[in-house]
């Protein structure tokens, strides 16, 4: 029983699958890589992009508010063609103008963000 539990935990830990909801993208990727005091916090709002809380981040990235889902998706996000969105371009770009500027995200993290866009870029 104990062995089965350990195997199950290890298997769960190694599956390259994660949710595609925005709440996951925000809490697992954006908060850890983008919201430090000097970057996209409410203090700095670097590039006029404010990611300091989930609602602000959604508005900054998609150009629409969480409670106005009738509005078209825009801004940095393209739900029809995620790899060609501005956001993906910034995340995948080489050179100093890419984001985050102190090193690229893992491919698995970028793929999660693109999967969120592909699923409709909902505020969920």
């Amino acid at each position: 029983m104990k062995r089965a539990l350990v195997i199950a935990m290890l298997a769960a830990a190694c599956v390259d699958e994660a949710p595609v909801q925005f709440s996951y993208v925000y809490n697992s990727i954006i908060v850890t890589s983008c919201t430090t005091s000097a970057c996209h916090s409410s203090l700095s709002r670097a590039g006029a992009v404010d990611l300091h809380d989930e609602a602000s981040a959604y508005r900054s990235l998609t150009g629409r508010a969480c409670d106005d889902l009738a509005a078209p998706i825009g801004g940095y996000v393209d739900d029809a063609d995620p790899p060609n969105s501005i956001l993906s371009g910034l995340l995948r770009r080489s050179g100093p103008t890419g984001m985050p500027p102190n090193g690229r995200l893992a491919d698995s993290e970028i793929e999660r963000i693109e999967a969120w866009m592909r699923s409709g870029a909902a505020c969920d």
Partner: protein
Amino acid sequence: MRLVALAVALVLVAAHGTAAAYPEFQFSTGTARCSACHYSPVGGGLINDYGRDEAATTISGAGDGRFLHGAVEPPAWFALGGDIRVATLGKRVREGTEAAVFPMQVDLYARLARGGLSANATVGVLEAIREPAPLSERIGSREHYVLYEAEAKTWYARAGRFYPTFGLRLPDHTAYVRRFTGLHSLEESYAISGGLVRDRWEVHATLVTPLEVHPRVGRHGWGAAVQLERLTGEETGSWAIQAKTQQNDGALETWFGGTWKRWLESSDLLFAVEANAGITRIDGIPLIGRAVAYGTVHYRPGKRWGIALGAHYFDADLRLVDNDRVAAETRFAWFPRAHFEISALVRGSTVARELGRGDLLGMLQLHYYL
């Protein structure tokens, strides 16, 4: 654009160094507790008379560690201090190389005390941001609190804005165990805390509140932290267990872990380790497992200088393959006389174990404290 990217890189790595404790002085100077040298019962910030004396004798072996080098003698109920840091930095990231000199920290501290009660505040320039607002808008107080401490230092209670007591309390806010557990630069919350301190152990508990902070950096929902630390050997080491939880934007993030420290006097080596496992619960999605760790060995042969090797590890979601972050570093610190420190850091980091995704950083820092 290169300048913009450079500024972001600079502040990500080094902006606004928090005036925290130097854990390598614990045990190696013959002092087991942070509060021996700091007014704060958990270390960091303004140093007391004993700490100032140690800076001139045990740590540097030269100079006068008192406020303004002893030129002015504040009354016992009033203490002042400050930290000024200037850094020069070179960095290789994303196929580019950058270099700059910049102010890293300007903080002034004040403490008013009567009996066991004290009011403590830090005022400083909050950030070296890339699109700087006028200086008048960037002056603020990231830490301010009222503290009551029993005369025998056996217990304390405090309320105000400060970091919860958790982990190794490293001065480097970019250390993964700080950066990824909600203890990054300017992320102090309004909180109340208390602690019991005994001969061989101490316990600290903090209740974090969602009160609005300015500027709002990091997340500030309801939360709590607790740490139990026990001294080992002839007060030459310690271990601690700890937990921290915080509600943020519909996500509940919880960390469990511990620290271990050991000073080997015969070889002048201090070992320190911190490891935490995390669980994040978000409505409607499966639990997210996380891990963060840090280890260092510090060589401090007598006075004036020390050198350390360290390693950082962070995994934001254990389900994802190849998303872990790893960094290795070496640090050198020279204390030529009281009030002065010159330190150098070289750190290389990777993402998904790929060198090209991380960065290589070299930083020289000049530090003066009042």
